[in-house]
């Protein structure tokens, strides 16, 4: 009995509510990202885009989801059934898991409790991100392998090598950032950017941000790095054999990845939930939290738009160009950035 009493039950309830809210929010945002993607593509190409389902076509994602659910489930005879189903599950799982450590806002006071708007503030936050993101490659790899299809396998190999190559540069570009803040916890990184006298990290690390941005595109398999699903050469690549909601999961995972990586970019380089030109310290806690969440969502929305904007502007890289860019440009640049940052920090400290 005393063991049960010792557990902080309100804390568990609070975290469960937070998890539910964040997961459903990211699902809804991913849903409407598909709508936004079609709208952005349309306006960039001088079209109107979906406008039939509901006002301004706002019910289009629901209609798309319904369509995917109604489709026939096809599992190819020659595929490995277990892995075939595991693939999309893993893709979805790893996409959602990263959301656990992103600080969505400072804290709110409710029922006399201070509730942190972050599922888990772990002190190795950045490492956790890298761990989960590199697990994301298994979704693609397993899906492509289990399909037992040449195109899928090629796509899976491409995807795996691409993600592994760009992860290196991504990690190196973050080391410079970590030298600045001296912490791996995302909460601390955001606090550091919010402190008076400090600026958003992007002003100190423009090159680092650029490398991180490019690598984020590659990690999310977004154009210009969408080689794993290259529609016109690999026939949609690793999810070619998938149908119905399993295909939906893959497509959905891509949008959730986009949302999460936008959140991470906003958190690491653009001050997270820091609203510019407002001093949150002087405000009511709850009000400050709401302003923070809105600020973070605004930054995320901009990055998601940016992802789409780039997609409808740039054609796909050739595979050798992709590898050249990753190994011969991004990694040396990230190394130089790291060295220069370290040197400057040492020089200024003296």
């Amino acid at each position, binding site marked *: 009995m005393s063991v049960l009493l010792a557990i902080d039950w309100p804390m568990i309830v609070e975290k469960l509510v937070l998890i539910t809210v964040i997961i459903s929010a990211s699902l809804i945002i991913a849903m409407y990202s598909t709508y936004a993607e079609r709208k952005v593509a349309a306006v960039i190409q*001088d079209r*109107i885009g979906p*406008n039939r389902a509901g006002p301004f076509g706002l019910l289009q994602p629901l209609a798309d989801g319904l369509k995917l659910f109604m489709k026939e489930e096809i599992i190819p005879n020659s595929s490995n059934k277990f892995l075939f189903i595991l693939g999309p599950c893993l893709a979805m799982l790893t996409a959602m898991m990263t959301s656990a450590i992103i600080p969505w806002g400072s804290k709110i006071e409710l029922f006399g409790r201070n509730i942190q708007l972050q599922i888990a503030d772990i002190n190795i936050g950045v490492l956790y991100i890298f761990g989960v993101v590199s697990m994301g490659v298994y979704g693609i790899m397993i899906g492509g392998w289990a399909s037992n299809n040449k195109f899928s396998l090629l796509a899976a190999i491409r995807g795996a090598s691409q993600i592994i190559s760009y992860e290196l540069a991504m990690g190196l570009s973050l080391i410079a950032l970590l030298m600045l803040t001296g912490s791996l916890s995302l909460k601390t990184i955001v606090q550091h950017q919010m402190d008076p006298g400090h600026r958003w990290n992007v002003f100190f690390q423009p090159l680092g941000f650029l490398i991180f941005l490019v690598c984020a595109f590659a990690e999310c398999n977004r154009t210009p790095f969408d080689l794993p699903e290259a529609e016109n050469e690999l026939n949609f690549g690793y999810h070619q054999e998938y149908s119905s909601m399993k295909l939906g999961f893959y497509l959905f995972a891509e949008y959730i990845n986009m949302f999460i990586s936008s959140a991470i970019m906003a958190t690491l380089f653009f001050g997270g939930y820091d609203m510019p030109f407002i001093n949150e310290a002087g405000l009511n806690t709850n009000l400050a939290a709401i302003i923070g969440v809105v600020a973070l969502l605004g930054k995320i929305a901009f990055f998601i738009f940016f992802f789409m*904007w*780039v997609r*409808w*502007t*740039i054609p796909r890289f050739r595979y050798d160009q992709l590898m050249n860019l990753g190994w011969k440009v991004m990694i040396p640049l990230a190394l130089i950035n790291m060295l220069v940052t370290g040197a400057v920090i040492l020089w200024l400290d003296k």
Partner: protein
Amino acid sequence: MQALTNRVKVLERKPMTFLERIYLWNIMKGMFITFKHIFKRKPTISYPEEKRPFSPVFRGLQILNRDEEGRERCTACGLCAVACPSEAITMEAAERQPGEEHLYREEKYAAKYEINMLRCIFCGLCEEACPKDAVYLSETFAPPNFQRESFIYDKNDLLIPDPKTEPDEYIRALGNRAKKAN
């Protein structure tokens, strides 16, 4: 070599400059172009709500005209069927009986008048051939259908609404082409 047209563009195969090799500058230029397109006027016409206006010489579905008193003008002379290059028009004539003067304008009328809209090429020669101003091409087009038979339009489909009982529908069906002809 002398250029054959003035549209020739000489390709320069120079090695890429530094600015071009780092991609970023050109990508930014491209993104600026796509950004400008967001604010461009969209040429799309949302079809059922707004319709593209027809040109004044547009030739659509045939219509069988009535006179001011609502009597059919057609006398089944067959000139339209003769003029038709795709042989889309068939008709059968009948004689007007006493007491039918309010229905038909002349002593002879078309008991059956059919146009096969799948054969019709909407050339308007029937309209030109008609001496009684009875057939002309309106400003509508044939709605889609699943059966071939439903594209053979008979008198029910072709006759214009009666100007006396349904004046509004009559005016609408008359369109701009008939007014000009009158």
